[in-house]
């Protein structure tokens, strides 16, 4: 008897009926769905011991204190360091995603010479040659670090040392000019200010140490009608800061100087200016016309400044008129004003103007990506990520976030001195070298960063000035030995200098500054390839409309 088609069908139905009574279909259902829960192409977090370490953010010269959560030996989370005297546990948004920067697709991993891949030895040879042939300049973006000392020391022998100052630091230059006190020794005593008149300074939006003002603002009655810290934002556009300010004063773009002069004029008329303060040669009507405010509005502003002192004017860009207004307000060297911290006497040489006929310029990785060295010389630029502006003959991959040992000097605009040490927490890729290491390879006589930091710690201990801050140090007695002192610094404690001493800024300003327009940012470019941000920053500008994308405006 042959096997007919019908038999086949019957047999098949038998199989089907049987299978339903076996685990096969059900187990397959189960397994396939479990497979969707563990798709092999979905990354899995590494398993491993979790610990929290203290460190400091070296992405900008403010060195905010951070708590870094480590898993399996890698940073997996960042939060603010409560006991840090400047940022007091607050960080800027980028800080929270910074630990992912080291794997950014635009991370530099290869020495490049005019676009071609090269080796470190090539770069070294070229730089040695340059040093032999003529003077070199070294541009630092984060002065006073141990690494800066290395750059400085090298430059002293082979050329000159320059610092690329950020806008908010440059805003202090007028005072340096008038008083001879280096801008790098000046800070804002915001902790004691009563009313802040901000000329477009993004105080609540990444200005200076972003956490510092945010904390101050919130602690001292943010948003409430009778705030202890009154923030008056003078700005054309409704910025984030303007939105949160106690008062927002929209004025014509670029009329900051006119308004400052107008206010100074009112103060003068009402005999409220500080002694021997200069008087602007403008009229109130003129100021009103330029700013688009009414005369009364300007009078009101002046009244508000005196009503809830001490008052302080802050401008985003260096603006002599605003600086002069502070002189008129008597906010120089006084409580809640511009104060002098530390004993530094020699000013930082700004990198805006480089000496002529240089042979080469070495730009440290701490210099902001949008800095443009105005020179014909050969440029050796260190950077951890792509996106550096201008012509860079040599592009040298530098250590990234938390990848190198560094010390953390005082934040630029802080009113007190601080010092901290940030040991590396993340293993750098094999290919990277810091500028300091590079220079040490060129000149073997230079001490390395670690030695310098040890020396500085010892110095601090011997100076007996200031005290250490750290969460477990709150109650503990100050360390007896230099070793204990250093140990605590290396484990995340912060050295805090003595409180600011008022006075000591002899500001001689006879005539009201004429240059109404803010000083142009010589040596800086407005257009540069989109800066590299922590990948999660896309939450702010691509996956929401909270911010403008970096192509249009750096966050």
């Amino acid at each position: 008897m042959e096997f007919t088609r019908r038999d086949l069908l019957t047999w098949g139905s038998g199989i089907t009926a049987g299978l339903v009574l076996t685990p096969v279909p059900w187990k397959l259902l189960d397994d396939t769905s479990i497979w969707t829960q563990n798709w092999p192409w979905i990354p899995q977090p590494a398993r491993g011991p979790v610990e929290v370490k203290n460190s400091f953010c070296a992405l900008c010269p403010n060195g905010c204190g951070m708590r870094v959560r480590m898993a399996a030996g890698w940073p997996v989370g960042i939060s603010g360091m409560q006991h840090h005297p400047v940022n007091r546990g607050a960080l800027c948004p980028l800080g929270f995603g910074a630990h992912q920067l080291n794997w950014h697709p635009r991370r530099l991993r290869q020495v490049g010479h005019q676009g071609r891949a090269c080796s470190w030895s090539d770069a070294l040879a070229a730089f040695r040659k340059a040093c032999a042939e003529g003077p070199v300049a070294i541009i630092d973006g984060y002065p006073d670090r141990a690494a800066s000392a290395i750059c400085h020391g090298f430059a002293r022998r082979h050329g000159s040392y320059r610092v690329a100052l950020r806008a908010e630091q440059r805003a202090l230059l007028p005072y340096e000019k008038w008083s001879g006190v280096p801008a790098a020794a000046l800070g804002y005593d915001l902790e004691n200010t009563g009313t802040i008149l901000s000329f477009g300074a993004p105080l609540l939006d990444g200005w200076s140490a972003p956490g510092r003002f945010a904390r101050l603002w919130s602690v001292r009655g943010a948003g409430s009608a009778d705030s202890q810290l009154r923030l008056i934002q003078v700005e054309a556009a409704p910025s984030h800061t303007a939105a949160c300010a106690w008062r927002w004063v929209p004025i014509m773009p670029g009329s900051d100087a006119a308004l400052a002069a107008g206010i100074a004029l009112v103060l003068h008329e009402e005999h409220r200016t500080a002694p021997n303060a200069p008087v602007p040669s403008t009229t109130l009507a003129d100021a009103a016309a330029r700013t688009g405010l009414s005369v009364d509005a300007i009078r009101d502003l002046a009244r508000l400044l005196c009503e809830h002192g001490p008052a302080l004017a802050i401008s985003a860009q260096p603006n002599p008129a605003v600086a002069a207004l502070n002189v008129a307000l008597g906010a120089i060297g006084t409580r809640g004003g511009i104060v002098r911290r530390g004993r530094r006497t020699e000013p930082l040489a700004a990198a805006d103007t480089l000496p002529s006929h240089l042979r080469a310029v070495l730009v440290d990785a701490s210099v902001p990506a949008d800095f443009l060295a105005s020179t014909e010389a050969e440029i050796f630029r260190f950077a951890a990520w792509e996106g550096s502006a201008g012509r860079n003959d040599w592009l040298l991959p530098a250590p990234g976030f938390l990848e190198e040992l560094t010390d953390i000097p005082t934040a630029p605009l802080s009113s007190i001195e601080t010092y901290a040490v940030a040991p590396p927490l993340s293993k750098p890729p094999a290919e990277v070298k810091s500028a300091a290491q590079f220079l040490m390879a060129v000149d073997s006589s230079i001490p390395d960063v670690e030695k310098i930091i040890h020396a500085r710690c010892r110095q601090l201990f011997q100076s007996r000035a200031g005290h250490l801050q750290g969460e477990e140090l709150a109650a503990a007695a100050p360390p007896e030995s230099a070793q204990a002192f250093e140990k605590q610094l290396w484990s995340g404690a912060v050295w805090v200098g003595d409180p600011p001493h008022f006075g000591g800024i002899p500001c001689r300003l006879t005539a009201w500054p004429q240059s109404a327009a803010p000083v142009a940012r010589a040596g800086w470019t407005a257009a540069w390839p989109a800066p590299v941000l922590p990948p999660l920053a896309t939450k702010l500008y691509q996956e929401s409309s909270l911010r403008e994308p970096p192509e249009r405006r750096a966050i």
Partner: protein
Amino acid sequence: MSRILMTFGSGFLAALAAGWLAFPQIAYRQRQQPLAFHHQTHAAKSGVSECKDCHAFREDGEFTGIPKIETCAACHSDRIGTSQAEATLVNDYIKKGYETPWLVYSRQPANVWFSHAIHVRRAGLQCSDCHGTIGASDQLRPYEVNRISGYSRDIEGRSSARLGRSPAGMKMSDCEDCHHKRGIEVGCLGCHQ
């Protein structure tokens, strides 16, 4: 008619046989452990008496799981005995400083959060309640991994159809059973992450 029944029946039985006998074997791939580790021998020779002597807690309650290679190196810095496994351990792992790639029978997937601290310290479970007699084993049985889901048979094998021969199931249903028995109700994210 009888012919129909016969053909039908033969197919029916064939399916049953395949489904119950062959399938559970085919569904899993067997993998050998990197080393022939003997719990018994270690208990006997190196006075470790309790599980927690090697599988300890950190002070924050985190469970350390399988000891790191340093723990092995403490005794096995040089070869003890002549076995092949010994040679592999010393030469390939300890000397080179690599961790032994153990295949963990009870390793839960990433979406499961299981706290040994809560189950052992608070609920007072015994290791053997879930891990069976592995502590007394004198050899490591092969690690069986499901070809589709990639789960170890210990955590998946006793699936909806209750297959497999793991000491105690470690599938979600098994956790639930135990929890119900003890009247401890937790939400999804009580055990998932």
